[in-house]
């Protein structure tokens, strides 16, 4: 017998009479459970109390509200049992804000713990106090913090250093007035590398939050301290130091060179973030360096570690690829022989594949283009729609970038169009998007190499009916307008759009207007009517102000001076340039400043994705 039964006992509880009881999930714990916990927390037996605390935390973990037990949990704070203490602290951090009045009761124990014989407890206490973001407790934090900053044990000191940043975040004035920030500045010279690293971390954060931005200024002495600590501290500490170094502007070429020398060994670190932080320092300092030979050497040194980042976990590969993308725009020569490294593997996550494509295009040159094309062709027959589209587009970009390859690229694109068409005939399937994508890039190839590949126009026009994506439609319409003299039925092709003009996408409408005007200027007899109609619709039926503007400009032009209109509209256009596709100079420079951060991943300046999301023109 088939068994699709739902195991009964697991899901339903039945009362004695056989009635079904429905169990609802509980967002807060039941009264009974609450009562039991309360009594256990106040039990005379140590084990029972501890078990109860664990249950409270377990409830907290699954998202139930146990804030009601605050006073009872608090009573268990004073204990020799480290595990219990940690749990109570954890509870405090979570619920302090809900019971600000009661937190005060914890202060005594905290202060006492910062005096404990065991450094682990001293550090734990100061770390936790900093995390209790309640106004009332801050005042009590200052004395213990002062003590801990001078603690003999580096574990306590490194924890206290971070605590200063916590305090500053809550109350900047208090942190400054009590001299904590100054102490932090002294701690950059601490004998212990971990303390140095945390002091730098804290200072960098405070500096960023400060209004004056003068909290953390590197000078000759601190610079040397940093360079010494760099080789001694943990991977995370190294990142902090390297990030601080990247902010520093070397006084001259010599100093830059000196620091670079100390930074370059970090390229060998196993932690990819250390490597990227090192690369960032070197790239930024290269702005100061004028010796061509040195720059050449440095560029050479950066390539292998960048390539090695691609053997990292996929998420880090992604960040690395986004950064390599930026670095390549700054230093196009850096990975010129490494294009194969970026070939896509079957098991690459899609987000990695897409980034690799971008980079392959940036690295394409006349020597590797053949191989690249055969790869791209392979990708264009894959399953992921997005990947296929971008691969087709990349083929077009190859053609635009490398003149020698343009013919081969066009042939590959034609192959794709033809094979997609045969497949569509057979299957009526969606492979059509390959054709649409191909038409979009072919339009760009036409604009790069005018009059070179016009022979294929009839093949393209055959697809006009099948296009349903605005960009592809707009592209083909542009081709029809631009080459109207070569297309016998150009006016008819455009006429077919008249009826649907109002429903078309704005970009299609814009191209229709321009194409119609071009056809009219080239073949006035055949197309007087449609140009009239199109301009009429665009100026009266359309609400879009931009479309109206365009149509009025043409209208006025045609009615004032048709000869001038010809000269204005039909003039030869310069070949398009690929440089316009990449990030603008100033933005690129800013993003290079942010290597390895989110800004470098998004390719957007930090202001654009932080805060409330507003971004004023004055900020540009």
């Amino acid at each position: 017998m088939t068994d699709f039964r739902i195991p009964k006992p697991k899901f339903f509880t039945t009362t004695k009479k056989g009635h079904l009881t429905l169990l609802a999930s509980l967002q807060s714990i039941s009264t009974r459970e609450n009562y039991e916990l309360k009594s256990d927390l106040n039990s005379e037996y140590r084990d029972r109390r501890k078990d109860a605390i664990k249950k409270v935390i377990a409830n907290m973990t699954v998202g139930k509200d146990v804030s009601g037990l605050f006073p009872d949990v608090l009573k268990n704070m004073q204990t020799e049992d480290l595990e219990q203490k940690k749990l109570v602290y954890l509870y405090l951090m979570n619920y302090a804000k809900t019971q600000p009045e009661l937190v005060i009761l914890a202060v005594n124990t905290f202060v006492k713990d910062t005096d404990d014989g065991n450094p682990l407890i001293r550090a734990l206490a100061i770390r936790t106090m900093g995390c209790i973001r309640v106004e009332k407790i801050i005042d009590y934090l200052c004395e213990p913090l002062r003590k801990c900053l001078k603690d003999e044990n580096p574990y306590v000191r490194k924890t206290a250093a971070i605590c200063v940043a916590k305090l500053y975040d809550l109350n900047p004035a208090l942190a400054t007035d009590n001299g904590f920030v100054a102490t932090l500045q002294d701690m950059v010279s601490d004998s212990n590398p971990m303390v140095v690293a945390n002091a730098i971390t804290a200072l960098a954060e405070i500096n960023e939050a400060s209004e004056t931005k003068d909290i953390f200024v590197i000078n000759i002495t601190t610079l040397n301290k940093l360079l010494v600590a760099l080789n001694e501290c943990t991977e995370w500490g190294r990142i902090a130091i390297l990030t601080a170094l990247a902010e520093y502007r070397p006084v001259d070429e010599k100093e830059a060179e000196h620091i670079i020398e100390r930074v370059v060994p970090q390229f060998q670190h196993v932690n990819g973030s250390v490597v990227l932080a090192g690369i960032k320092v070197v790239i930024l300092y290269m702005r100061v360096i004028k010796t061509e030979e040195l720059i050449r050497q440095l560029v050479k040194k950066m390539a292998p570690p960048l390539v090695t980042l691609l053997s990292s976990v996929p998420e880090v590969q992604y960040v690395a690829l986004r950064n390599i993308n930026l670095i390549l725009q700054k230093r196009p020569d850096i990975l010129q022989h490494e294009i194969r490294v970026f070939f896509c593997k079957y098991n690459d996550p899609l987000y990695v594949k897409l980034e690799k494509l971008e980079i392959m295009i940036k690295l394409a040159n006349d020597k590797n283009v053949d191989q690249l094309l055969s790869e791209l062709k392979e990708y264009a027959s894959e399953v992921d729609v997005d990947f296929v589209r971008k691969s087709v587009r990349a083929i077009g970009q190859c053609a635009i970038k490398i003149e020698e390859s343009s013919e081969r690229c066009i042939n590959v694109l034609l192959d794709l169009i033809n094979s997609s068409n045969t497949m569509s005939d057979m299957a009526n399937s969606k492979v059509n998007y390959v054709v649409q994508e191909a038409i979009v890039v072919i339009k760009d190839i036409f604009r790069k190499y005018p009059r070179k590949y016009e022979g294929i126009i009839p093949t393209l026009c055959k697809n006009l009916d099948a296009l349903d994506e605005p960009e592809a439609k707009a592209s083909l319409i542009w081709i029809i307008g631009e080459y109207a003299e070569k297309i016998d039925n150009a006016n008819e092709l455009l006429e077919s759009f008249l009826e649907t003009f109002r429903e078309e996408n704005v970009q299609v409408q814009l191209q229709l207007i321009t194409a119609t005007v071009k056809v009219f200027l080239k073949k006035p007899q055949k197309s007087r009517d449609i140009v009239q109609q199109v301009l009429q619709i665009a100026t009266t039926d359309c609400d879009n102000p931009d479309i109206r503007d365009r149509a009025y400009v043409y209208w006025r032009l045609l009615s004032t001076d048709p000869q001038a209109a010809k000269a204005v509209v039909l003039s030869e256009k310069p070949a398009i340039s690929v440089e316009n596709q990449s990030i603008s100079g100033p933005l690129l420079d800013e993003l290079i400043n942010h290597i390895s951060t989110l800004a470098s991943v998004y390719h957007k300046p930090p202001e654009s994705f932080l805060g409330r999301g507003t971004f004023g023109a004055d900020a540009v």
Partner: protein
Amino acid sequence: MASAVFVLDLKGKVLISRNYRGDIPMSAVEKFMPLVLEAEEEQQAPTPCFTHEGINYLYIRHNNLYCILFKKEDIHRSLRYFASSTINLLHLLKTVLALTKKNSNATTILLFLHKLTEVFTEYFKELEEESIRDNFVIIYELLDEMMDFGYPQTTETKILQEYITQESHKLEIQVRPPMAVTNAVSWRSENIKYRKNEVFLDVIESVNLLVNANGNVLRSEILGVIKMKCYLTGMPELRLGLNDKVMFESTGRSPTRGKAIEMEDVKFHQCVRLSRFENDRTISFIPPDGGFELMSYRLNTQVKPLIWVEAQVENYTGSRIEYTIKAKAQFKRRSTANNVEIYVPVPDDADTPKFGNSIGSVHYAPEKSAIVWKIKQFQGGKDFTMRAHFGLPSHCLLISRLHAYICPKIVEDPEKKPPIGVKFEIPYFTTSGIQVRYLKIVEKSGYQALPWVRYITQNGDYQLRMPESIKNNKMSFI
């Protein structure tokens, strides 16, 4: 820095979380899954970092397969993972996620998240929903110790285990922070004692290969690692000598035997003094106790692919598919590859497998949608052939027959085309010719310790793309 860290299950439910900075609403995590799904919906691959309403989401996906992939032990299994991840979300064990409000260092956060899963795995053997639930106390402790105010702190499992353990609480004496936590040598504790001082060195080279469908090698690269197991007393100073070309060139000497090799990029364990290496290519270090990976290196060399595989596929649409696979060992006769496994992808819905092979064993592994051809010992210079035959589901036949007069249009999506994968191990052999020239051990107590060295070459990410199948449209009725 990170504002908060979450561990989520595959549906996006929070298993455990830690709020480090209190500057974001913890409810922001509820937006995470819908945003990821939305991205998938729009045919865009959800990326590991994205931003939404001022909050940045950085996450990694962790499951058993992922671990395997990056330890490079079982390439094919991980391939399968991607090959058939039509309902991929179901196959992710869990997500570790960090949120931040600032323009934080993305690389650091993502690596930290990986480190977190690594530490959890080393602590609990398996990182499962259950292990997280059962160990929530210790996980909270680790989260507290490994990150402070959103900045990574101590992430070395060995050191953490010295003062964060379930057992430590049972002792009456309280644990203290080990010196190593803050020392310049943050990876080794003092007072380590061994009766017998020994060091084992494994030089393992993994060959990454990518071959296109026409049989052209697109990429071949060697990733080497030197793994060590150190059982040494005290605080020993070690120095490792390799036949490193750059070192010989810089010192003007030449290698005593064999040739020197040129490493493209070297990465060291944090115990190695990087500046020293930069200066004179000396690899000097105080090792951690026990096993660790001392260094890794990369070589871009056009070596002949060690195991070469050619496939010929004949597809009789709607009835059967036939494979002819040729494998060739392209290395010297005196070497032998052990435990060779060749994975040939077949359609997901293949059935009734039949094989013909002269050597080794062949079986159909439906869970990988592949044929697995295992050859225990594959001597250099030899080549072998295997044939396989599969049936395809009868409905295809029926449908195509029906289509002939009912509906001439078949909706056919392009197929996924996974590559052939190969696993192998060749002992006593390195492709690059790397050699350990010496390992000097100096400790103030002055003991003697002998290093043991082993060499091995194995497959890394080894992919040969499948050729187009020969379509045979002859209709054969049942």
